């Protein structure tokens, strides 16, 4: 029983162990470069190709891929495989248009072929930030750097997802490199809305035909601050009447006269046997005069100063509040932010050369 269990464990160990010939892409690349240096060109080419074919976690880095393609192109030149050499160098330029084979390492016949490919291959690569947060009031710009393999006619534009033009960023010749900037506005100067946009970098031949399109998708998120609602003007129910109606004046008149009459007439009924004081006439006269004066000062249509002042204060307070909200909202409207996230670039081949 123990011997059988031991056999099973040994078998499991043997099957789980990696095969002896399996090597990582960088190792394969190193072997391929070693073979090239040993002039074992027939061994170098497949090793270098194999290193480039590895994908996923063990794949070469961009810098290693550049090295692999450079050595692969040189190997094919020395093997007299011109088409393969051109293809390798083109792939190299697609990956990094600024890269050049080191003349101290590679012989002139290699660099000459590369130069020929370089002159024929019009390609750009852009370095785009993965995320840009623009505050438009601060005149922030979305920036990208474009690197070209060789001088050619070039157009950079931002389009909507359906292909309609949003903004042309550049049209003209491109040499070694070019900085692109976008302020987040379309051709009419309006800030673009949220959505998917495309940053198209187009390489053209002298005849204007499309050679190659380098496209980076942009996800734009427009962030606006909510504005405050305007304060309501003071309602009529809140405002005081600014002119007298007929009622206060009549109330004053009849109030004064009625009390004056009462003070003259009623004491005789209350105390019929008493010799009534004439002084009550003075009080009655004062009351009646006050009533008449009240009627005159409160006649219909005459302004009520205190109410006018109170209403003016309320309206002014509303105006002040409205002005404050308008200023705050103006600031909020200026505070527009655009968050731009870039996606993986794609290259589309055209018909031009």
């Amino acid at each position, binding site marked *: 029983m123990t011997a059988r269990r031991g056999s099973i464990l040994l078998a499991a160990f043997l099957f789980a162990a990696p095969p002896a010939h399996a090597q990582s892409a960088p190792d394969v690349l190193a072997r391929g470069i070693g073979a090239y240096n040993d002039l074992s060109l027939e061994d170098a080419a497949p090793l270098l190709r194999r290193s480039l074919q590895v994908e996923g976690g063990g794949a070469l880095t961009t810098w290693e891929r550049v090295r692999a393609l450079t050595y692969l192109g040189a190997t094919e030149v020395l093997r007299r495989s011109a088409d393969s050499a051109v293809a390798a160098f083109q792939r190299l330029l697609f990956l990094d248009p600024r890269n050049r084979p080191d003349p101290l390492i590679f012989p002139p016949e290699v660099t000459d072929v590369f130069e020929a490919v370089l002159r024929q291959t019009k390609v750009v690569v852009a370095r785009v930030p993965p995320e840009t947060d623009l505050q438009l009031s601060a005149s922030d710009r979305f920036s990208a750097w474009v690197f070209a393999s060789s001088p050619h006619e070039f157009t950079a534009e931002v389009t909507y997802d359906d292909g309609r033009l949003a903004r042309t960023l550049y049209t003209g010749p491109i040499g070694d490199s070019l900085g692109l900037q976008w302020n987040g506005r379309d051709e009419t100067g309006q800030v673009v809305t949220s959505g998917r946009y495309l940053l198209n970098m187009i390489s053209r031949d002298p005849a204007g035909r499309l050679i190659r399109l380098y496209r980076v998708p942009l996800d734009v998120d427009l962030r606006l601050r909510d504005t405050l609602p305007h304060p309501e003007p003071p309602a009529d129910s809140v405002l005081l009447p600014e002119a007298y109606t007929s009622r206060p004046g009549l*109330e*004053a008149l009849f*109030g*004064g006269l009625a*009390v004056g009459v*009462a*003070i003259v007439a*009623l*004491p005789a009924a*209350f*105390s019929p*046997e*008493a*010799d*009534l*004081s004439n*002084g*009550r006439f*003075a*009080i*009655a006269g*004062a*009351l009646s005069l*006050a*009533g008449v*004066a*009240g009627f005159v*000062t409160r006649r219909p249509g005459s302004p009520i100063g205190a109410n006018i002042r109170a209403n003016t204060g309320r309206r002014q307070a509303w105006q002040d509040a409205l002005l404050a909200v308008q200023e705050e909202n103006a600031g909020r409207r200026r505070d527009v932010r655009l968050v731009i996230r870039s996606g993986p670039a794609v290259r589309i081949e055209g018909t031009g050369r």
Partner: protein
Amino acid sequence: MKRRAVLALLALCLSLPPARAAGQARYYAGGLVGAGRLDSELGGPDTPRDELTGALFGFEGRASIWKLEVDVRYVTGTFEADGSRLALDLVEAELLLGVRPISWITLRVGPHARSFTPESGGTDRWLFWEVRGRVEPAVLAPQLRTYFEIWAAVAGEVNFGSGFGGGRGLEAGLTYRLRQAPFWGRIGYRVDRGSLESGARKDSVQELLLVVGVGAR
């Protein structure tokens, strides 16, 4: 029946919304000067009516909270008859509980006492239990108001004669309150009559009043 009517009226007034902000206590007090006149049969029912005049001094005050008010008033003076040796001292005091259902109407109840003390000695005392109604409509501005008050005694006592008969009176005048300062003034005319049950004596006191005070009216 009278007591029930008074209680019902008070309940109605208290159920109305307050004339001022609840909980805001207000006070005022004022000094009073005036000229008084007394008409009475002091010598008895068969004698001619006596007419005495004199100066009055006193004070009045009020404390109010919510729609309730308490008023006090004290007046004293010496009255003399023209051309005679008849003279007496008058003392009046009131303590009234009021309710103000709306800003310009007040209903008040309470005791009102009055005494006459002649130089010859002895004191005649009146005690009136009164119900009063007062209106204060504005005439010129909120600062200047007229007032008119009328009252009747629903019960009373006297310490002389045949017993309490009745009492009634009125007062009217003009109140001015300064806009920016807590001072106020008032002029008014008042007549107040009390009678014995037998009708043998009827005292009428008339007052021309000037009151100056401080505090929120």
